[in-house]
């Protein structure tokens, strides 16, 4: 069936099988391979994208469920050459190693600081509790998300970046 999805601000149309998963629509049909597949079972969060601004696991939604809605992937975080604060913070605070969980972690983080401009460590850890990182442990991911929040509000609370 034919669907139209706004992907990173641009309307995209595709003719898809009703059973096609959203993650495959994004990766295979739209060619945006920054969204990864880790577990196929909603457990790991590597496939996280924002659906109308809310983090969802795209391996557990059908592509057709995104019809008429807006999807943001990691490729849509930066605007022009300018990194999103969450991207700059992940880079600055070494919030990644192999990079596989990173898009999901950053999108969850971006959505969190959008609705909570100054999350506590506990709030950050709760927000990323559906996302698994197998390389680093979560210390620097938490640090990066808090630093991004601080950078975004210009609160100057980003001491660890100094």
């Amino acid at each position, binding site marked *: 069936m034919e669907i139209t999805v706004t992907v990173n601000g641009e309307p995209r149309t595709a003719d898809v*099988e009703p*059973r*096609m998963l959203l993650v495959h629509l994004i*990766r295979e049909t739209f060619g*945006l*391979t*920054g*969204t*990864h*597949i*880790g*577990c*196929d*079972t909603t457990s*790991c969060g*590597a496939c996280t994208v924002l659906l109308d601004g809310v983090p969802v696991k795209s391996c557990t939604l059908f592509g057709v469920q995104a019809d008429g809605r807006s999807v943001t*992937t*990691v*490729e849509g*975080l*930066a605007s022009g050459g300018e*990194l999103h604060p969450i*991207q700059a913070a*992940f*880079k600055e605070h*070494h919030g*990644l190693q*192999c*990079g*596989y*969980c*990173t*898009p999901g972690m*950053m999108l969850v983080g971006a959505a969190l600081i959008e609705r909570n401009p100054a999350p506590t460590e506990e709030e950050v850890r709760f927000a990323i509790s559906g996302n*698994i*990182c*197998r*390389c680093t442990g979560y210390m620097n991911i938490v640090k990066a998300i808090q630093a991004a929040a601080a950078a975004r509000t210009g609160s100057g609370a980003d001491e660890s970046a100094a």
Partner: protein
Amino acid sequence: MAQTEEIRGIGHRVRRVEDDRFIRGKGTYVDDVKLPGMLHMAILRSPYAHAIIRGIDTSRAEAHPGVVAVVTGELLAQHNLAWMPTLSYDTQAVLATDKVRFQGQEVAAVIAEDPYTAKDALELIEVDYEPLEPIVTPQRALEPDAPVIRTDKEGKTDNHIYDWETGDKEATDRAFAEADRIVALDTHYPRCHPAPLETCGCVADVNPATGQATIWMTSQAPHAIRTVFALVAGLPEEKIRIISPDIGGGFGNKVPVYPGYVVATAASLLLGRPVKWIEDRTENLISTGFARDFHMHGELALKADGTMTGLRSRSSPTRAPSTPTPSPQSSRWACSAS
């Protein structure tokens, strides 16, 4: 000339070259590799840990629209590819022929125009299994009446693989003989799976004109893999190129040569088109290298004041039916002991 920060050793900040790609979603992991004309492979795995294969009927799968080929051990055997050497001087089935030796073992593979079709067709393959007694502990493996797993090894009458010892036996025995106190512990160091966030997989591209094989693979050991591929295919190593692109974690899980790589490459060779195989998480957990799973007995020799003078341990690790490559710890199922 650009000024560099003073290098302070440990704790000095290092800019990683790969981060700019990763934070923009511009990494290239193996599933991101897409070649013109590429086919997709899915693997049928054994639900039994130990069973004779009486027959495999692939006709319905082959007739399914979008299916290009169904590969079985029998087909591979015709090309002398059903078994492969391991880097531990053993052999390992690529696709099972006579029987399956662990749960999740590769039995057949479907090559199709798209991954959904490949998975659909797996359900159309009928395998006639005759279940045999499985072995699930190393203790059972060594009992005299235990079924023999490696019947493919000529003259093999038990499940014992190897004994290995290290240390100074005489000095240790003396420490224990002179000890004021000896404490002992039986324990199980449980199995764990490395479970990298990116599962295993490859894109195999054998060029029908030149015979050159290029395989993109989530491998931590591309050079060792090239050696095994050369041995399996009987090709010189310069005909084989293994490309490890960005790797979504490995932790040892991506060292061995898994049958999926070989089947995908054989399929590409036979069909003259690139073949992609990406494992799902269930496959990764049941069929790829795990770690630990040691049944251990430890003894400590002590003086009255608590000074430790000797340590002795014996362990029976659960091992693969095929000695894996090249890490002796991460292995595929089943049992033996020392």
